């Protein structure tokens, strides 16, 4: 029996799909870089760099609008079905998640501006260290999720789901640790609130990376694993347990 080709009969369809996928790739790169630069600005106590991160978030927003528009055009013109439809729906959802990660990275840059431009008072490394370690971890989550997306690698995507489980555990632990600083010295309360909001932003950043991983699984397997525990996903997909993803306590 004749084997079907893999290119679309209408080449423009593939071109349009690739155009959108490339925009999504670009958003992923920007998003990871935004978080790195935001954390770096905090480490270097450099509010000028932080402002650049905040301004650059507009680029992510513009890319979201551009990509969504192209997605709508493609749906209207091409009426995609089956794998094409899952792909275009997934791209739309990933775009939203990436734009939100940009928002969370902007919040971290906002911390730098607050500490070193507005308040002129550093909270101290012992309080900031959790920001640094957590940002490295969630940055890795997003990188792995985007690589899984690019390669349609279900195992890699599942690994990000497991990383999110660890993230939740560490998030709780960090909150408990931060609360001890309040008990030690109530003057820390102002920074405590800011750091908690920063930690929360990073936790949300990781959550969006987890969402992207879930989209990869849906795109590859047509199975919607949102709202499922990682153990259940592993069983559903028949996956072997991924290796441990180390939480790094050093920023």
């Amino acid at each position, binding site marked *: *029996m004749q084997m079907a080709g893999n290119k*679309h009969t209408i080449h423009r369809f593939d071109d349009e799909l690739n155009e959108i996928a490339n925009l999504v790739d670009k958003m992923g*790169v920007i998003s*990871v870089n935004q978080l790195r630069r935001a954390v770096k600005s905090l480490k270097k106590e450099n509010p000028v760099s932080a402002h650049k991160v905040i301004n650059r978030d507009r680029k992510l927003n513009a890319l979201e609008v551009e990509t969504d528009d192209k997605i709508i055009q493609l749906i209207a013109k091409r009426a995609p079905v089956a794998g094409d439809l899952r792909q275009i729906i997934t791209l739309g959802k990933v775009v939203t998640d990436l734009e939100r990660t940009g928002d969370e990275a902007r919040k971290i840059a906002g911390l730098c501006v607050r500490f070193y431009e507005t308040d002129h008072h550093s909270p101290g490394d012992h309080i900031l260290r959790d920001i640094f370690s957590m940002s490295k971890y969630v940055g890795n989550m997003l990188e792995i999720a985007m690589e899984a997306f*690019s*390669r349609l690698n279900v195992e890699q995507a599942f690994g990000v789901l497991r990383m999110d489980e660890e993230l939740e555990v560490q998030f709780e632990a960090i909150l408990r640790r931060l609360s001890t600083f309040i008990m030690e010295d109530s003057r820390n309360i102002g920074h405590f609130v800011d750091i908690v909001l920063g930690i929360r932003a990073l936790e949300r950043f990781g959550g969006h990376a987890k969402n992207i991983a879930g989209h990869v699984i849906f795109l590859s397997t047509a199975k919607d694993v949102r709202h499922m525990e990682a153990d259940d996903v592993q069983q559903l997909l028949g996956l072997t347990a991924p290796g441990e993803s180390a939480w790094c306590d050093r920023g």
Partner: protein
Amino acid sequence: MLTMTGTIEAGHKSHLTPLALNNQKAGGDTFEGTVGDFTHPNPRMTCRGVDVFYNNGATHAIKDVSLDIGEKEVLSMIGPSGCGKSTILRCLNRMNDTIDGCVVTGSVRLDEEDIYDRGVDVVPLRARVGMVFQKPNPFPKSIYENVAYGPRIHGLAANKTGLDEIVQNSLERAALWNEVKDRLGQPGTGLSGGQQQRLCIARAIAVSPEVILMDEPCSALDPIATAKVEELIDALRTQFTIAIVTHSMQQAARVSQRTAYFHLGHLVEVNDTDKVFTNPEHHLTEAYITGRFG
């Protein structure tokens, strides 16, 4: 591709194409049997091991096809040109008998009756299993006579009043009555394309069929007429079993409950329509409906 350093490779083209998705589907280079489920829990017509040959055996058009058409369902048949979908449709009411050199083997049953049995009269068979063709083909008669002709020759009406009721009822069910009730005496050929097709549907249902076969019923119609016929199909589904051949993926997705995909005479896949158009099992089905075939 996103690298660990966070830079994008120059000239990068995303790997994100359905190539990767397609490779996860069932099916290899040779036909290995129909995927999905060709049976129906409540079949109205069944085909088992049907082969069709043209030119006295020189051309093997349908290859060992088994397929159920369920009671009061709409089954769509899709596939590229020449795949055999119209051929198998014509098997269901023995329209292939009219083609010289055409040979049909295997079993085709309407309920439990083998329609190819020697004792079967094809005239009443084709009333029970009616057909609507691609190009509207009203008789060169009045609108009234187009619909009344079948019931009259089959003796379905005791008198003129009964015939009038059948004509009105059929035109109403074909969503045409309001448009033609004041001009029943005018030629059927004077109607628009969409109206003519609905007149042909009315003609088919006037003889109280059990199954209606539709061979690309909308391909000659404009979008609005197509929408009206699709709406009609949706309404008729509550009363009749319908098998429809169509080249429009979107139409098949809209009107049918099950979809059968044919390829080079083989029945490749039969599944719920929702599944076929969101996540088909066979890679050839995916390739065809996404336009990557050939």
